[in-house]
């Protein structure tokens, strides 16, 4: 595999990591503000994380 492909793959993983990290962070903050909505917030967080991970994997497999 050539160097540009490897660098591109690393950038995709950085993007996915930042995205999922931000979602996790805001989910935690919201759960701390309103503990009674923990179930719903958890569900939505997992859905958004899976979508971002989907883009990450699609880019990695297209290398």
């Amino acid at each position, binding site marked *: 595999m050539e160097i540009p492909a490897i660098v591109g793959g690393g950038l995709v993983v950085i993007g996915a990591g930042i995205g999922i990290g931000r979602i996790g962070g805001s989910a935690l903050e919201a759960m701390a503000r309103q503990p009674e909505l923990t179930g719903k917030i958890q569900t939505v967080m997992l*859905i958004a994380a*899976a*979508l971002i*991970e*989907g883009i990450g*994997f*699609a880019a*990695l*497999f297209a290398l």
Partner: protein
Amino acid sequence: MNIKTIIFTIVISVFSSLNVLAEQHMSDGDKDIKTEIKETIAHHLMDSHDFVLTHDLSFPLPIILYTDGNLDIFSSANFHHGTTSHTVNGRTYSLDHGHIVEASGLHPVDFSITKNVTFIMIVFLIMLVMFTRMAKSYKKNALPSGMGRLLEPIVLYIRDDIAIPNIGEKHYKKYMSYLLTVFFFIWIINLFGLTPLGVNVTNNIAVTFSLALITYVLTTVSANKSYWGHIFWMPGVPVPMKFILAPIELLGTIIKPFSLMIRLYANITAGHVVLMSILGMIFIFKGWVGSSLSFGLAFALSLLELLVAALQAYIFTMLSALYFGAAVEDYHHE
């Protein structure tokens, strides 16, 4: 330090230390260990024409080929694990890295019952047994017993938290059977992919393609006028923008099921490849520290794969419900 802790410690240390006795079987002479690991991984992830449980216990599966108007059916035991070729009615077939090639250049269409097809049928039987038991246990009283007790919270969760919020009260019943089938099918198959049987059905992009295709066909067939109106002539935007948005929205209807296919395939395949590479590392480090740490990492990763198996089934079902809901929703124009 009670007896449970002691037993647990002994079991874990026995499992971690047996790794140092790992030897590799250099079957082809001078091959480098890394190449051999790569070949073993590729062999495990591919579909195969016979069902191999251990090295001595294997079932040959039937091969059904359609070449130029002639149907050839024979058992894959004739191939002897890829070493010999088989001639029937003048056409010679041989196995080349899992593909069937014909000697004189004809292209056979492969309808064989391979390992993946066999496993899909086995999962179909498992699901049939599970759900008929559950339905029967409702006959006597409203509270289920047996298999119904295990499945009822999951079925109710799919109905109350996936189907009704996304599709709405009026139309959700038509889609419940598909959503339940897809959820349990993907979950059971992902779980079986983690066992040492070596079956990985969702590893095959054709399987996930079929599931995404069914979702796409269901959304297109059951879409009402406001859905198509939103795609081709989006209300609420100025006219030049409508012409720009129409092809993008049309492409979006295809890309959404396409992303369903890629997401499931890539998650499961990546998990399996990483897990098997880490298991291969046990053979590369032949000392105490490296092998035990690789085993521990493989164990932890397998636990994560359990979560991914259930999560991917849930995500597929939820996104399918979302697309169905968008297709049948009654949009109120202001």
